[in-house]
């Protein structure tokens, strides 16, 4: 062992530094956010019954940019992002379609949520079975997909929307701020 001489001291940094660096890179990250592989790809075809009882199909979005917002009444961050969605829906009405996907929730609670926090009038697909969420690769609400006029997913927000996110990402789907 001693024949390794002074070089043996190299062992310490060689072992300590990489592992410390690795753990350090993990510190700043949220283990729950997953980059969506759907970005740059066409929105998967999704359909279902809305809370009003109507049939809705993603084919109806053709030619129009859209925000697909996955939410639930039991989800606290959904409350914080809701006013932003209401704003966008009002401001860009006609240019942009907002579509809600109700995730693991009941129609009653959803109605109560809208009565309390405001109803933007957009369709909400009731995804009680979770199949729409699985088609989109959703891990948990709130999540929002930014889809451009050609039906391509341009951005996927995991967690609540913020004013900055909207300002940065809406131009990607052709909605100027």
């Amino acid at each position, binding site marked *: 062992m001693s024949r390794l001489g002074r070089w043996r001291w190299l062992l310490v940094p060689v072992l300590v530094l990489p592992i410390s660096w690795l753990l350090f890179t993990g510190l700043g990250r949220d283990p729950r956010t997953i*980059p969506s592989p759907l970005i740059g790809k066409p929105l998967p075809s999704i359909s279902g019954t809305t809370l009003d009882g109507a049939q809705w199909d993603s084919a109806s979005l053709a030619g129009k940019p859209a925000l697909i917002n996955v939410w639930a009444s039991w989800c606290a961050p959904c409350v914080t992002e809701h006013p932003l969605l209401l704003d966008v829906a009002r401001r860009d009405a006609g240019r942009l379609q907002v579509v809600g996907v109700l995730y693991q929730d009941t129609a009653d609670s959803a109605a109560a949520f809208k009565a309390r926090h405001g109803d933007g009038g957009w369709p909400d697909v009731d995804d009680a079975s979770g199949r729409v969420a699985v088609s989109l690769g*959703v891990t948990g609400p709130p999540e929002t997909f930014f889809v451009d006029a050609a039906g391509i997913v341009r951005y996927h927000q995991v967690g609540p929307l913020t004013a900055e996110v909207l300002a940065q990402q809406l131009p990607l789907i052709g909605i100027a701020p």
Partner: protein
Amino acid sequence: MRRWALPAAALALVALAVAVLLVVLQPAPAATRQEQARALAAELRCPDCESLSVAESRTAAAAAIRAEIEEQLAAGRSPADIRDTFVARYGEWILLQPMSPLIWLVPIVALLAGVAVFGWWLRGRRPSPSAPTDARDIAAVERQRIRDEADLLDG
């Protein structure tokens, strides 16, 4: 040479056993559609829980994925196709076994490195045939004998 024969044989046996197990422990190809669905679900990570597979989890998302697996199998798609579909939606993250072969090398390299250390230890330090018995061992044997005799007297 003879004393090398047994450990060499033993090591070879262990290595063989490990290799055979590695191969055989691959889940046997599932026969029925239900088994196929189960095997596939066990390989997919439940999206809204921690560290459980879709087969084990009782969340709605896991149930939805199980339902979709069964539908797609019923529609005649192969398990590999279905797996790819989920990877396309969720990313490689959804697979509980990463696709990169790199991680499969880790246990093999770790074991080989260990065996190398073991071999180095054996080769480098064979005692000379006339090595005297360790004095401490003699003392220990002696102590044990004295204790035994003392116990005998007690009883």
